[in-house]
């Protein structure tokens, strides 16, 4: 018998090339180490191309993100880039929001055409967030070249005043900000709701929220986001394994070996890049994902029937 480079995935019910999956994990882990996103948006469709059912792909991906974000959080923590206080508050909000979101999606599905609403919302959000980040970082990169020229002091002061007027102010020394306890909690709930409705980890929404609404420095945002993703994905993995039996551990293990290494390299690459460079690259990535989603919606699928996702 020849030395096999293939492994059989018992839950996915198919075999995969070990090197391909390790490489895929490495690439996605790199992105998550640099930008603090889980990478599910990229991983799930790619795994489906390898013949893995969508439900198994998504659940096993959250299992591997547990490994990759542990590795990434670890790396960022050593660089002092994790704001644990802020992360925990966002996390509590996120879990509350996730529970609400799951109920909302049930109601939406009963009303019919939920998929349509979700896809459209997702594409619009990605477009808006990506576009805004891109333009904003482009502006500040240009502004950085010239002597100090603050462009929008008016808007900022209104928002800052609103922030300062909220009760229960506290310091977040890691991020170097002072704000009300309610800000991360409420924003966490909002991101949690959106993430549950769209069925994504929420990194893409969380990162911009931390940058623009919580005004955290970009490097701390990446570390804190990974810290938060770690807990979200532990929760998802256990729930999926217990209720839907869709976690393929062999697949997750292969992916996480690749992605944990990728996340370490990513954290180092991210350290070398400036905050604005990071922002503009993430913005481009978000826009690419949006274009891809839009393409999927507009192009005629090869086969007009698909296996049931979900339950």
């Amino acid at each position: 018998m020849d030395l096999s480079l293939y492994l059989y995935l018992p839950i996915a019910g198919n075999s995969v090339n070990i090197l391909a999956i390790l490489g895929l994990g490495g690439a996605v882990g790199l992105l998550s180490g640099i930008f603090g996103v889980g990478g599910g948006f990229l991983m799930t469709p790619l795994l489906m191309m390898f013949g893995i059912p969508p439900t198994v792909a998504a659940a096993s991906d959250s299992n591997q993100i547990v490994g990759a974000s542990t590795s990434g959080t670890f790396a960022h923590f050593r660089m002092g880039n994790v704001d644990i206080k802020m992360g925990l508050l966002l996390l509590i909000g996120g879990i509350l929001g996730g529970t609400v979101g799951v109920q909302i999606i049930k109601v939406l599905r009963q009303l019919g055409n939920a998929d349509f609403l979700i896809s459209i919302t997702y594409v619009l959000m990605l477009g808006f967030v990506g576009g805004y980040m891109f333009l904003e970082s482009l502006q500040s990169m240009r502004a950085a070249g010239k002597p100090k020229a603050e462009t929008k002091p008016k808007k900022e002061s209104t928002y800052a005043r609103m922030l300062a007027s909220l009760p229960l102010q506290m310091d977040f020394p890691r991020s170097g900000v002072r704000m009300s306890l309610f800000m991360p909690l409420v924003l966490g709930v909002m991101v949690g709701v959106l993430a549950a409705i769209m069925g994504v980890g929420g990194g893409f929404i969380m990162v911009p929220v931390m940058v623009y609404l919580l005004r955290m420095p970009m490097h701390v945002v990446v570390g804190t986001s990974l810290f938060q993703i770690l807990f979200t994905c532990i929760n998802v993995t256990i729930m999926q394994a217990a209720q839907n039996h869709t976690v393929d551990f062999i697949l997750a293990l292969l992916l996480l070996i690749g992605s944990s290494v990728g996340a370490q390299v990513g954290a180092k690459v991210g350290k070398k890049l400036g905050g604005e460079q990071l922002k503009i690259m993430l913005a481009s990535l978000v826009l690419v994902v949006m274009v891809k989603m839009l393409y999927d919606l507009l192009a005629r699928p090869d086969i007009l029937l698909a296996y049931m996702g979900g339950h």
Partner: protein
Amino acid sequence: MTSRTLWLCSAILVIGCLWASGALAEGEVRFSSAPDSVLMDTFYNGATLKVSGVVPAGSDVALRLVGAPQTLHLREKGKVLGLLWMNVGAVEFENVPNAYLVATSKPFSDLGRVGQSLRIEGLRAGITQNTGASSTNLDALQELLSLKVHDGLYAESPLPVKLEADQGTERSFSASIGVPSGLTPGDYRLEALALRDGETIGSVSTPVRAQLVGLPAWLNHMAFDNGLTYGVLATVIAILSGLAIGMVFQSKGAH
């Protein structure tokens, strides 16, 4: 050699001789497959069944591996607002063979009427569609067949069955049937048909079982019977691996 092994050897010899010398009754087909089951272990990546046997002289051969019939619920994709492709409904089929792999000794078109019915298209007759598609001009059954072909579970390969010249009243054949890695564990039927003048003149089938063994079997059992423990274990191992890799990089960075 013990007397038991001796007895076994002579029994095998006698059966072998009987096979080699025995003349076939009209339309009789005999074959064997090696291996006669599909064992899905850690390194399983599909399997090849080597099939050999005899058919009456002058006939062609078709071999097929057919899976158990199942009921399938599928999502139908359609255009919303004349622009976006989305899930627009659900379609249910009954009596859909789990897998259908067919191989013949001649192109299907040269096999006459029976050739057409052996093709994947021939499965249409047996499958019933319970819920109608929301789009009237969607041939849902055709889409179902395409989906299965795309997954590698339905395949037709003309010509992989090798036929020898007639020897008396019979001729022998051999073939290699590739079993896809995406085959679900379960019971399958391997069937050999002797074809002549566009008709099936004889057939015989044998059960082939596809089953998980070793690590995949254990993991599958854990995932379905102890889901919570499995989930917690998977998470803990992921965290430990993440930490371990993190530490490897830390020690590297310190140097």
